[in-house]
């Protein structure tokens, strides 16, 4: 059980990384882009870059708002 948990923690850290919100924003933005393209017929090539730049800024702000990460 302990080994399973550590394997899960390794893969979570490997794929998701330090801030799960970034992963959540990217996945949501890709899904929204697909919806806009296939349902609404909008060629939303700009949506993913805008969301990713926003997520990066938000994540940096959260990391530096307190004392910062000094790992």
């Amino acid at each position, binding site marked *: 059980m302990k080994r399973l948990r550590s394997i899960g923690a390794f893969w979570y850290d490997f794929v998701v*990384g330090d801030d799960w919100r970034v992963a959540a924003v990217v996945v949501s933005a890709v899904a929204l*882009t697909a919806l806009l393209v296939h349902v609404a017929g909008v*060629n939303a090539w700009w949506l*993913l870059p805008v969301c990713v730049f926003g997520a990066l800024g938000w994540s940096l702000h959260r990391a530096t708002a307190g004392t910062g990460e000094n790992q």
Partner: protein
Amino acid sequence: MNSLPLILTVFVACAVEATEALTIVLASGLTREWRSTFQGMAVALVVLAAVVAAVGPALTLVPLAALRLVVGALLAIFGVQWLRKAILRATGHKSLHDEASAYLREVAAAKAATVTSRRGVNDWYAFTLSFKGVLLEGLEVVFIVITFGDNQRDLGAAVIGAAAAVIVITVTGIAVRVPLARVPENAMKFAVGIMLTSFGLFWGAEGAGVSWPGHDASLLGLVPVVALVSLGYTLMLRQWRTIPAPPVAHPSEEGVTS
């Protein structure tokens, strides 16, 4: 698309990880035993090569749009995490990765461990230390090699980039016999983060059905835009750090203790 950006991106990403793996291998070899260290390193490299050989060609059977959707999203997540870490380190909000101190930590742990022989390996500690170091650092490289290689339908070029980096770093490490503390790891991480994010955005959106203005050529515009936004965030954080913080009320006045 030309193979050169693919080879260069994989080369730089692989060089960063190989530098970190080399620190562990040197700590193990110089303080414990070279034979067991090389055995651990060789087994890890075989495992990594097997993963590339098995997963790489298998993924080419997946339809390109689906592959780009999943891999693009993963690369964008990966790239932003690399950029985030590099920006935090460049602005002093996170300590820089220091190969010299990482080496000293590994040496201290290696000296303290006892020598035990197991499964034909003289020094099991040296074997596992080297095996785990190379395998864990190599997994990110394998991910990049497979995703970039399969998406570009050019796995061979990605493997060339990775192999070249491993050879360059290994030969340099063997020649100098000290951790490569002078490698500008953070700058390289920053550059790789920009490339991973750019390719991730391009493939992720394309996999979702988007048609990029200018098609493949839009990637040439996307890379500088990602670089400029990242540099902008870096400059902004540096400026904020130099502005003195406003006076903070005494904790007891706000009832805050942490």
